[in-house]
Structures are given as structure tokens and as C-alpha cells.
């Protein structure tokens, strides 16, 4: 398909801008002006609409295809949430910072406060900030809060512990917050090696970061002990909320002993993933860490109104205003719509769907940890590998059959990993259809592996040469 720049015709134009009702001003000095106009496309509105409509048709999406991408919680994004968020598009955030402006934005401020309270109750934390703009941004914010806590106690701790099965963002975020990383291997039972962890823990460790259920989709029964070991050494505990969809109403990280948590609104709380963002990564903390949250805070006053207040001891500002409000409005709508019982049902059905998937597929696919899983299950294509078929080949075959592939090659501690997260919004029929194709792929892997190597053949392009892309570094058109 042509690029929109290739469809450009000099002199053609699309949308009209407003007419001027003021006199032409004396132009700026030439030295301050750009030499020539930016070469943006010159297309009609219809050209534009066809281009982007046809581009969109080259995507798989939740609304068009089953999308069991493990660790990403690709649940259905309810349409009413779009309507809800659209109500706030004209609210200027700077209004909240003007003298007397708070009175004019009580609605959005009450929504922020309400969402913070909902998330605090769901996670068992004492206070929440919505400022972080994504999960990884939440992690960095959380670790900065932990750093501020230690600093205030006059301690200069150097290390953050992460399991080797963690999301790559965990060590990367801790490094951005100024820490060195200690990586703990996974024990044969599928969780962070408790002995190695105990040995690594000491008075120089600032925090341990855990995902629970872990990236294998397993609930770590030692999680309370892990927290206790950290606390004994004066370290804090960080909960990566990526997998919160499994445990709502069942377990609250705050009850278990976690001090800091981030949640991904775009995963658990059903906001659309947008092709890779925007997300939102609110951070919750226990009472002792509240002073170190980012500034400003939305505070509920005694008369029931809301104000924006500076938070002077905090880590400063991690984004311009109150976070990705449009995403927060959707999540608030989702939680309000579902209510407590609805959220419990979400986790129960997510776990049921994943276990059903696991039970149906474990005959054909190697299951490295054959035990009840939570919201996702991780297989290995190791049996298929004997016929030269890799996880990626199975993934590409699924595309030909109309399914978005599961996550492959993550977590790193499972060879040829295939990580399936169906989510609660998929029906048994959809999962059965997917399972049939997975079983068929296993059969093809035995009978005709070459067929899998050729996949996909139904897409606009076949497998793309990534080495060529990295070498050419062609990241924009000339």
C-alpha cells in the first residue's frame, strides 16, 4: 500500500481552516522563520479517509479477532467507556491551576479522587496517584517513591531485586530511578528461587519487585514470606500489577505485604490499547509512603469539595498534570459500571477461561508447569521443535487462520514460550475455535512442518526481513 506522502499532489488540500477576522500582522523576521513549509501530505479529505480506513483494515484488533496476547489482557473494551470519556474532551487542565479555577473543574477532580479510592480498595493500598502515564512509568514512579522513603531515613541503599522472569520494564525502571539490579533465578518449581533471594537480601537492598501471579500465570505461594524477608532487612516490596486481572476480590497486594503497587488501567480495567498506547499506570502506596507521592495531589476537603494541593515532600512531578485523564475516565466508568461483584466475576471468569485453555491444549503442547494456572497459561513449543517448528511458526499459522497469536518467547525462562491469556470476555465457542486451530497446528507440525514455515500467506505481507530493517535504518521516507 502506498504511503500517504506518495498519494500527495502539489496544490491539493483537505480541510479548511477558519477564516481570519483580524488584520494580517507584520511578519516575523526572516531569521526566525522556517525556510520552506513542512512537506506534509497534500490530499483531499476523501483521499485521507480512504487511506486511513484501508490502513486500519491491515490490523488485527480485539474488535475483529480473538487476541489472546499473554501478559497484555486484551479484553473487550466496552463502547460506553468511549462515550463516557468523550464528555470531558474540552476540559483544559490548566484551569485547575488558576486561582479560583478549582471550583470550575470539580467534576473531573472528583473523578480522579473517586478512581484513586476505587483502586486503593481493589489493591488494599492506602493512597493512589494517577499521574504515571503507563505501566512502566508507574514502575519508575513507584521506585522513585521508595528511593525518597529511604533517603528521608538517611539510608543510601543501592540495589533493587527482580526475578529473572520479570517484565523487562522492572529492571529498566529501577535503573532509571538510579538503582543497580540484582536478578534472582527461577527455581524448578516455577517461582523466584527463595534461597537465592534470601541470600541476596541485605541492608543495601532498597526493594524487591514482584509480579503476582507471576509471568508464568502461577500464584506464588511464598509471596507473603518474600515480603517478610524484605521487610526484615528494611527493604520495601513492589507489586507489578500487570496481572491484577486474575485476583480482583480474591487477593489484595496491600493485605499480603506489598508497600507499593502500580496497576495498568489498559489491562485490568478495560481501556483500549490503542495500537500500543495510551495507557495509564496509577501507583498505590501504604500509609508510610504517602508523603513521597508525586505533586500535586487531588484532596477532598471537609465540605466535600476537591482541591489541587502541592505535595512538598514528594518526588516532584512525573507528568504535566493528573495523568492520562481520558484513560482514567474510562477506567472509572468501567469500575463503576461493573461494581464489586462484577470485578470478582471478571477475575473468576478470566481464570476459568485460562484453565480451560490449558486443559484442552496440554495434550499436544508441552506444559512446563502443569498446575492450576491463574489468568494465563504458558506452553512451550519444545515438542514441535523436534520437527523444526518454532513457537513463531505456530504464531504465524494462527494469523492465517484469523487469530492474533499469543505472546511468544516470553517469559524468557521458558524455551519457545507460548503465553495464552484469553481474558474473561471470550466465549467458550471462540476459545474452542482457537483450540481447534492450535491442535491443527500441532498436527501440521508433525505432518508438514514446511507449511508452518511459510505462514502467514493470507496477510498483505509475508514474514518481514527484520535484519534488513535494522541495517537499513529507514525510519522515515525521504
Amino acid at each position, binding site marked *: 500500500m502506498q504511503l*500517504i506522502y506518495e498519494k500527495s499532489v502539489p496544490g491539493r488540500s483537505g480541510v479548511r481552516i477558519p477564516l481570519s477576522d483580524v488584520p494580517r500582522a507584520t511578519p516575523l523576521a526572516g531569521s526566525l522563520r522556517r525556510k520552506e513549509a513542512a512537506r506534509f501530505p497534500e490530499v483531499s*479529505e476523501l483521499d485521507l479517509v480512504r487511506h486511513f480506513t484501508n490502513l486500519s483494515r*491491515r490490523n488485527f*484488533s480485539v474488535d475483529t479477532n480473538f487476541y489472546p496476547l499473554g501478559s497484555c489482557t486484551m479484553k473487550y*473494551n466496552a463502547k460506553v467507556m468511549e462515550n463516557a470519556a468523550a464528555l470531558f474532551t474540552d476540559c*483544559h487542565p490548566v484551569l485547575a491551576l*488558576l486561582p479560583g479555577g478549582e471550583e470550575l473543574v470539580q467534576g473531573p477532580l472528583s473523578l480522579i479522587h473517586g478512581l484513586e479510592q476505587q483502586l486503593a480498595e*481493589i489493591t488494599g493500598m492506602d493512597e493512589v496517584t494517577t499521574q504515571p502515564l503507563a505501566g512502566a512509568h508507574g514502575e519508575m514512579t513507584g521506585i522513585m517513591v521508595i528511593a525518597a522513603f529511604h533517603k528521608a531515613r538517611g539510608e543510601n541503599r543501592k540495589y533493587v531485586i527482580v526475578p529473572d522472569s520479570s517484565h*523487562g520494564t522492572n529492571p529498566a525502571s529501577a535503573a532509571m530511578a538510579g538503582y543497580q539490579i540484582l536478578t534472582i533465578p527461577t527455581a524448578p518449581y516455577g517461582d523466584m528461587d527463595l534461597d537465592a533471594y534470601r541470600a541476596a537480601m541485605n541492608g543495601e537492598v532498597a526493594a524487591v519487585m514482584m509480579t503476582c501471579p507471576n509471568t508464568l500465570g502461577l500464584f506464588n505461594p511464598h509471596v507473603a514470606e518474600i515480603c517478610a524477608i524484605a521487610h526484615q532487612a528494611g527493604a520495601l516490596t513492589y507489586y507489578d500489577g500487570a496481572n491484577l486481572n486474575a485476583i480482583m476480590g480474591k487477593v489484595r497486594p496491600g493485605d499480603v505485604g506489598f508497600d507499593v503497587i502500580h496497576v495498568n488501567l489498559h489491562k485490568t480495567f478495560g481501556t483500549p490499547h490503542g495500537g500500543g498506547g495510551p495507557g495509564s499506570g496509577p501507583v498505590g502506596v501504604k500509609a508510610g509512603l504517602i508523603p513521597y507521592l508525586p505533586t500535586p495531589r487531588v484532596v477532598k476537603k471537609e465540605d466535600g469539595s476537591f482541591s489541587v494541593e502541592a505535595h512538598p515532600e514528594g518526588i516532584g512531578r512525573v507528568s504535566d498534570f493528573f495523568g492520562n485523564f481520558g484513560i482514567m475516565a474510562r477506567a472509572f466508568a468501567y469500575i463503576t459500571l461493573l461494581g464489586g461483584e462484577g470485578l470478582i466475576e471478571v477475575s473468576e471468569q478470566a481464570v476459568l477461561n485460562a484453565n480451560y485453555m490449558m486443559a484442552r491444549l496440554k495434550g499436544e503442547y508441552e506444559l512446563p508447569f502443569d498446575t492450576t494456572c491463574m489468568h494465563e497459561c504458558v506452553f512451550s513449543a519444545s515438542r514441535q521443535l523436534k520437527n523444526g517448528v518454532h513457537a513463531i511458526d505456530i504464531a504465524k499459522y494462527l494469523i492465517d487462520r484469523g487469530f492474533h497469536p499469543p505472546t511468544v518467547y516470553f517469559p524468557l525462562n521458558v524455551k519457545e514460550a507460548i503465553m495464552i491469556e484469553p481474558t474473561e470476555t471470550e466465549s467458550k465457542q471462540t476459545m474452542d475455535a482457537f483450540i481447534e486451530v492450535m491442535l491443527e497446528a500441532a498436527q501440521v507440525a508433525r505432518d508438514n512442518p514446511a507449511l508452518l514455515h511459510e505462514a502467514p500467506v493470507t496477510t498483505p505481507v509475508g514474514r518481514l526481513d527484520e535484519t534488513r530493517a535494522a541495517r537499513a535504518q529507514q525510519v522515515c521516507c525521504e
Partner: protein
Amino acid sequence: MGYCPNTAEEIREMLAVIGVKSVQDLFSPIPQELRAQSFELPAGMSEFELMGVMRSKAAAGGAAIIPFIGGGLYDHIIPAAVDHLSSRAEFYTAYTPYQPECSQGTLQALFEYQTAICRMTGMEASNASLYDGGTALAEAALMALKITGRNAVLLDASVNPLHREIVCGYLGSLSAEVEEVAPSGCESDLERLLGSVTAETAAVIVQNPNFFGSVADFSALAERAHQQGALLIVSCYPIALGLLKTPGEMGADIAVGDGQSLGNTLSFGGPYFGFIATRKRFIRNLPGRLVGETLDKAGRRGYVLTLQAREQHIKRHKATSNICSNQSLCALRGLIFVSALGKQGFEDLAELNFDKAQYAKSVLSGIKGVSVLNGEATFNEFTLSLPKGAAAVVEKLLGFGMAAGVPLGGYYAGLENAMVVTVTEKRTKAEIDRLVALLEEVLCS
């Protein structure tokens, strides 16, 4: 309730396949003592009731106020096509294009976006977007630390104060030094900036137009920075780049900014997107996602995420940044926006902003006791000096439904009587004239 489709009968069938009696059995790996101690949330409701709740919150949202405020986020036109096309579910309910063959829509759009950002800023390589303008500036500073191997940046204090706070937070975590250079009046203090660059400086960070609205040419600063082995980072306002000298033309090494003004609604603080673009030689130091062009076996052109060895999922703690996602949908809106306006339309839009602001400047400065503090060159924002405290004036005008400007007292000592006024293409002459009348009235009372 939770959009969970399976019937009681289907659930029974599934439990039988799994070999357990109830859904509760599936939670048996969780020890009893770890179970939730509380989960007190109200009962759910229907869509109809929910929209009632949301409408009541939105009604108290300040949307009726006429904004002469900016501060980095601006009230601009958004062509209808932006909403309609970005609302295609194939775009907004997809995720990161990990599987390129079934994600060419997102990938090609991001490649086109990267091209648009390069053409807008005059730079050579843009990534696929960052979170917002403030964090993009912080990422640019981190990038400069890594490229130069140095540990200090020079930060023009006429850069957006909120962005400066974010930069200081990010750099503070890594014990890097930030030296702020106070402005001279409403202008960047070029003399002092030039004199402060040393062989220890990783980057000089400036903004154009700056927070006061003043426009400058930082070419000499780029030259001076390069003599000292430092980089020049320019934070810019996309709409202004329809008119102003680009960071590329000035010789900047990294250009960043907030993309909100390109087709993204204000939405009380987000989502927006941040952009970052650089010289081709620094491409491997870019944070975040990057889309590159390549071919499939049949020679068909296609797009993939590239140079991923920079990123956290491969490099973990050695990655260029911890960023995992981008702001894909917001970047898509930006691309559709510039494509809808086109080459001429984008330039015309910038001219219109300039003309409206120049008109506002002339009529507002005609009020007794009011003067413009900027030098000659501004774009669509300028700083007014008032004969009394700006905070009280702005508060009074809010009562008349006008957000007249952003008072500077909270950000710059000594500027308690000053406010920054923003005039976009959406402000009519009638609104500007009404602002003049109201301001006169408030100042006289």
C-alpha cells in the same frame, strides 16, 4: 455483568474439562491467609445510569470557559476526520505491533508519523512517540547524558516550569546535575547560556517559543554547544513550527515537544503524546519504539519495529529507557491532523495563530497600565504586565467565563503582576475584544 459471555451450562462444561467442581477450586493455589480482607465497592449499574453519573461530573468540568490559556497545551481546531478515523476499532483496540504481518496498519501509520515529525522539526529520525512533552524532554536529557558520557545539563529557566520539574526529577534520580539559567526579562538569556556551556555540559535545553511566548533563534547556541562537545535540545510547539525556524535549521541535536496540539483533545491532562527526533547518527540512542521499512521474501514493502536491542524487553536494565509502550493512538491522531491540513493548511494555521495573537497583543496593550513584556518576536502567546496582581485579575475574569491567562507569580519570583496570554485560531475577534473590555473593567474597579 463484566462482559463475561459464558452461560452457567457452558461454565459447567468447562469445569468438567478442567476436572474441578467449582470456579472457587481454581483459586485453591492462593493460601487462605492471603485472601482479600476487604473489597467494599458499590454495586454495579447499567450503561444508562453510568452515563448519568458521568454527565454530572462532566457538567462541572469548565468546558464553557473561553480559554486564553496555554502553558504547553492548546485549544486548537480538530478536523472531524481525526475523530472518525482514529475511532476505527482496528486501530484503537489493537495492541503493540509485535506481529507485523497482522499489524501493518499501525506500523505503516507510525512510519508515516515518524516522517511527519521529521519534516515538521527538520530532523532526521523520529521514534514512534513518547508519553508527553514533559517526559519527552526528560528522555532527551537522559539521551544526551548517554551520548556524551557527561553528567550535567544546562536548563534555560524559560522552559515550561512543569517540564523543568519533570526533567529535574528524572535527572535527580541518576544524580545528574541540572544548572538552571534565569531568563533575561521574558527572553532566554542567550549571553549567559553561551557563557555557561563547558566541556562538562552534556546538553543545553531550551524551548521555542519559550514559556513567556518569546521566539528566538538558537543557531549560535547550537554552534557553541557543539564546540564544547555538548548537544542542543530544543523543546518546540508543533503548531508554531508551521512558521518558525525548525530545530533542524538551528543545528539542534534533539527536538522534542508535546503533540497535543496536533489533533488531540485537551481532556483535562491527557492522553497526549510526546515526540522526539534526532540526527541519524544518534538513532541507536533513541528511547522507545521505532518503526523501520523493510521487505518480505516476495519483495513486498512492509514495516516492522526495529532496533529493538535498545529496548527494555531485550536489554532490561541496560535499555536506553524503561519505556515499553508509545502513545500510538495519539500519534495517529497527530498524523491524521497534519495530513488533513496538508502542507499549505498547516502553514496557514500557524499564520492565523500569529495574526490573531498580534491583534490581541495590540489591543490588550492599549489598555491603560498594561504592557507587553516580550521583545518583538512572539508566536501565539505573550506576557502582559498588569498594574496589579495577575492572580486576582485572572480569578475575577474567570467569574465572567474567561480564562484570561496564566499568572506567572507562582512560577517566577517578581512576576506577580504578569500573565501569559494565549490566542489560538479558535479565538474570535469578538472574544478578544470582550477580553479587552472585561480586563479594562476589572483593572479599573
